[in-house]
């Protein structure tokens, strides 16, 4: 396996020079090698896309698919048999359901109207969490006091999952997102236990329906009057629980760290809170780590806008975070402009598979930011932000902690 580095493709994921700094390779990749061969942690070869137009096409063109990642010739992220979140039993159950049908059955829970109705509850929860943090005293770690419990509360409330079980699904989620951090049998056992937990919860809701998403999905049918299968229901619960807290918690942490790292940003928002909406979009665009990216399987030869041909059978890794800093798509792409508009970043993907929960993530980030500016205007880093640490060995790489003062 060990080989001469010059002959080997880049190893992916790329190392990051610092907690708030993107990989040094991004500019050169975008300019000189926008379609780059890479080696994944499994040892499989894939193709990394870093330009905006290429990533946009790969994520939305029907010649590439997510379902294709289950094919035997598709590249695997990890060598383990349990596979990654993209080829897990959960992903297979959701794929089997028919994506558009599934999306429309669940989409009603994520309308702008529903999100607006959630704001008072999100705000009250954020206020309560800030109260607790302030009572605890400074310095405090924003992750366990606010960034993690807030999205957990919101998604648990929406799904009808008891919040007391959060330590369990936090552990299962971490194993789910593992690239190299957990041994294979542990990942498989976490997947099984997560699925069992969700099946148990579904049975409970069937007996005693409540006013929540799972209870309503149990009773719901698609346009042809067919209900969702039990397997897909459990997978939906898992997927929403997983996606609903992990990435949002990471983004709340990263947003706060980034805005505080340059005081002029925080001051600008204090002076003009109407910038909160565009600031959240800019933070999402500018995210220096942005996780692993999204994978797609190429079903037939496809030319990307940068001119290269992706041969059928290729697995591509779309780095949305690298594409978000493409100077061809964004003026002064490396700079953070809190008023940037329009801001068609790719952080939530594009096309039919773009993030279902994006309106919820946006609403939570905007609400938390508003609460922090109002409650703790003197908020600041309690340690040098260059010394913050990211979680390694996972598909997402959130900051492990964020010590703050106020």
């Amino acid at each position, binding site marked *: 396996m060990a080989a001469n580095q010059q002959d080997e493709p880049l190893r992916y994921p790329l190392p990051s020079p610092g907690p708030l700094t993107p990989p040094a390779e991004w500019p050169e990749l975008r300019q000189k090698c926008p379609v780059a061969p890479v080696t994944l942690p499994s040892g499989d070869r894939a193709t990394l896309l870093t330009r905006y137009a290429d990533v946009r096409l790969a994520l939305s063109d029907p010649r590439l698919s997510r379902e294709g990642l289950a094919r035997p010739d598709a590249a695997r992220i990890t060598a383990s048999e349990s596979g990654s979140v993209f080829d897990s039993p959960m992903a297979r159950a959701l794929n089997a359901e028919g994506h558009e049908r599934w999306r429309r059955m669940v989409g009603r829970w994520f309308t*702008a109207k529903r999100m607006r109705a959630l704001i008072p509850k999100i705000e009250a929860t954020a206020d309560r969490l800030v109260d607790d943090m302030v009572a605890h005293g400074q310095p405090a770690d924003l992750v366990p006091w606010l960034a993690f419990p807030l999205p957990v509360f919101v998604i648990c409330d929406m799904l009808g999952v008891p919040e007391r079980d959060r330590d369990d699904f936090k552990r299962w989620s971490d194993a789910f997102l593992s690239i190299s951090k957990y041994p294979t049998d542990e990942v498989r056992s976490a997947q099984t236990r997560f699925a069992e937990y969700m099946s148990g919860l579904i049975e409970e809701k069937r007996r005693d329906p409540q006013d929540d998403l799972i209870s309503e999905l149990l009773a719901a049918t698609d346009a042809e009057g067919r209900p969702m299968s039990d397997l897909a229901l459990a997978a939906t619960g898992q997927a929403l629980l997983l996606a609903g807290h992990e990435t949002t918690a990471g983004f709340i942490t990263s947003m706060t760290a980034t805005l505080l790292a340059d005081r002029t940003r925080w001051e600008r928002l204090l002076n003009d809170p109407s910038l909160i909406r565009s600031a959240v979009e800019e933070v999402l665009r500018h995210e220096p780590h942005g996780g692993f990216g999204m994978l797609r399987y190429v079903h037939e030869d496809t030319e990307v806008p940068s001119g290269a041909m992706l041969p059928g059978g290729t697995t591509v890794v779309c780095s949305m975070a690298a594409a978000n800093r493409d100077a061809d798509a964004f003026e002064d792409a490396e700079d953070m402009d809190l008023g940037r508009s329009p801001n068609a970043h790719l952080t939530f993907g594009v096309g*039919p598979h773009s993030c279902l929960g994006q309106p919820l993530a946006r609403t939570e980030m905007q609400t938390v930011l508003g609460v922090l500016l109002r409650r703790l205007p003197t908020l600041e880093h309690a340690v040098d932000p260059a010394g913050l640490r990211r979680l390694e060995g996972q598909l997402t790489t959130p900051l492990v902690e964020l010590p703050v003062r106020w």
Partner: protein
Amino acid sequence: MSAVEVTVDEAKCCGAGQCVLIAPEVFDQRDEDGIVVLLAAQPAEQWHPAVREAASVCPAAAIRLTGGS
């Protein structure tokens, strides 16, 4: 002064709701599945900047504008 004609592609729409948040006078979503509903195919000029922003950030590229400057 220029008229802008807005069309939406329901089949492409992924229900992200960005358009409703940016231009609520022009776009809404169906309650049953979150798919876009066009409220004003020829919106008043004051909404044009918001409509343009909504079209450019739509993750499904489901909003099309014709006319205008």
